[in-house]
């Protein structure tokens, strides 16, 4: 019933532009996988390729064990929820939800208006099928709490209600997998969180395979078992949300995952000095230091202390800075700090509001520091350099 989705060396071009560049991906049965990336990265195209709505140039698509390269969309037994829901505006909610069942259970003539009814005069079979569809639609609407809407047209529904009807239409024929193309992007912020939770519940309840496209990393991280980060037609990294957050495979992923994003500092090597940072002495001389081009540090790994009082000794790097801007985010404060050294580079620090005796005004002089173990190191190509063996105390 619930199936895996496998993509093997999938490639697609628009003219000379590579939209999908040798994509390999496996979504296990019952897994919730998100495709996340900036707009234009190819994530929606990938979804449409799996649905069979777009053709591709090379590679293979498997749903379950079946290669579906040449299989038309309706025979792939997958459902898709579109960004704009794509509800049929001239049909009621009930008719919208019943459409996939009508299409699969009635013959070409039986399902047409007038002709079908005319044929129905001669057979009770059609009547039975229609009654069965009616029951299934009613039950599904009840379980999604949209029973009161069945007679309305999509134009009379709110965004959240449309979203639910679209889900119902997708669920009604129990597909092998669900494909969702930014289903929450048309909802307002509050509703988005509510529907997001409902989606998570739904996935737990029906245990089906979900492949979910979004540009919102929070959605991806909160909903998914695994997240695939895409950029420029490639999957940069696929892993659990914590893997992506704690050890991003490259600079792009590091910058993309996490809000506020990771502080990325370029290491322009001037001889043995690293722009005045006491970093060189701590990196093993025999490792190829030149390979490290950028360092990254998460905002929550920055420690702040008042100027003049040294930070605890396990903080390896301690720098002077001034508060450039302070943002109150409820439970936490985000500080934008300007380093005194290093040409006034800006760093973002995140501090739990509970830990602060009183918020710091902009202009305040502070000490900021971090532990070398918390650093993320990236080489010239932007790939992650395993941090721990490089660092010595």
């Amino acid at each position, binding site marked *: 019933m619930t199936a895996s989705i496998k993509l093997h060396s999938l490639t697609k071009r628009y003219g000379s532009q590579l939209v999908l560049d040798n994509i390999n991906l496996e979504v296990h049965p019952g897994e919730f996988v998100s495709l996340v990336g900036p707009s234009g990265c190819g994530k929606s195209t990938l979804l449409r390729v799996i649905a069979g709505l777009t053709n591709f140039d090379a590679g293979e698509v498997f749903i379950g064990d079946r290669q579906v390269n040449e299989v*038309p*969309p309706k025979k792939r037994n997958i459902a898709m929820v579109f960004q*704009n829901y*794509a509800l*049929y*505006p001239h049909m009621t909610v009930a008719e919208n939800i019943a*459409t996939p069942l009508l299409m699969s259970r009635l013959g070409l003539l039986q399902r047409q208006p007038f002709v079908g009814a005319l044929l129905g005069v001669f057979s009770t079979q059609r009547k039975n099928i229609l009654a069965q569809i009616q029951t299934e639609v009613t039950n599904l609407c009840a379980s999604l709490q949209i029973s009161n809407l069945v007679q309305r047209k999509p134009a009379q529904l709110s965004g959240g209600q449309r979203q639910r009807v679209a889900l119902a239409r997708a669920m009604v024929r129990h597909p092998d997998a669900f494909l969702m193309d930014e289903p929450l992007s048309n909802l307002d912020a509050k509703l988005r969180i509510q529907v997001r939770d409902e989606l998570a519940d739904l996935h737990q309840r029906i245990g089906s395979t979900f492949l979910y496209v979004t540009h919102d990393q929070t959605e991806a991280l909160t909903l998914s078992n695994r997240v695939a980060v895409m950029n420029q037609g490639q999957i940069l990294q696929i892993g659990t949300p914590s893997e992506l957050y704690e050890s991003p495979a490259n600079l792009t992923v590091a910058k993309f995952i996490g809000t506020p994003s990771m502080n990325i500092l370029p290491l322009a090597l001037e001889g043995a000095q690293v722009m005045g940072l006491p970093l060189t002495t701590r990196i093993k001389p025999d490792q190829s230091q030149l390979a490290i081009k950028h360092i990254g540090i998460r905002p929550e790994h920055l420690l702040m202390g008042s100027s003049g009082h040294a930070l605890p000794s396990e903080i390896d790097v301690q720098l002077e800075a001034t508060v450039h801007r302070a943002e109150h985010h409820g439970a936490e404060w985000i500080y934008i700090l300007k380093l005194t050294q290093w040409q006034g580079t800006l760093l973002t620090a995140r501090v739990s509001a509970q830990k602060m005796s009183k918020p710091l005004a902009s202009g305040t002089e502070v000490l900021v520091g971090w532990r070398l173990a918390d650093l993320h190191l990236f080489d010239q190509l932007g790939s992650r350099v395993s941090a721990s063996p490089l660092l010595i105390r």
Partner: protein
Amino acid sequence: MLKLNQANHQAKNENILGWALALPASFLLVMLYLLPITWVILMSLTNYELGAISFDWVGLRNFSKALEDEVFLRSFRNTFLYVALVLPSSIFLGLGIAILIHARKRTRSIYEVIYFLPVTSTLIAMATVFQFLLHPKLGPVNYLLTSIGIEAISFISDPQWVIPTLSVIGLWQLVGFNMILFLAGLSSIPEELYEAAALDGANGPIDRFIRITWPMLGPTTLFVMVTSCITSFKVFDTVATLTQGKSGSEVLLYALYLEGFQYFKMGYAAALTLVFLFFILILSIVQSRLIEKKVHYV
């Protein structure tokens, strides 16, 4: 009390200002629309003839005369037959061509221009072409018919054939216009609906058309229906140029033209004009009512 007076005064001033501002538009409205119509209504109650020195009020006698007028009744029947032939064929042909052209990518604009040509061409000029094409002895159409063993048909002078022939010419002229309207309607159907339908299993041409295209074109179809109805109701130029009303081919507007401008019976022509306007009015009311009735979707 003083305040109240002041407010009253102000309201009065605003009232006067409002009327003053509405005056130019009202004047034009009366001069351009209401007065001519009133004039026609009054004239329809007289036996006025162009150039006559005096006229009599004849009440509704012009209308009762129309009911016994063989020519008028024939023109009435002809017009309705013409509408009945042109309306459905121009809608379905326009829709069919629009669907076929819509699927074209590169050649679409070429087809659009070709089908739209008859709309822009003047029928007076094209009438000579049709006269030649349909000529019983010289025309290629009859040459084709006789070459496959069918007797030549006098399309324009045979009373049996004349209205269907005029209908085909009307169709030729109208179909391109309807096609453009349907093309606009087709372009406004979101592609996502077809994609959703493809996943739902409705991806054959019949299902696509019946489930999505046809219902989504509802508002367009209604508009096309009413405008085509009015256009074909107003048929005049083909009759005036090709048949001059011979062989029993009079239509409403042509009968009206004959009475007014050939026989100068202005009173009678005015009565016929009112009959004609009555039908156009009904069509317009139907149109605005149906369009108000939300046949379109958000």
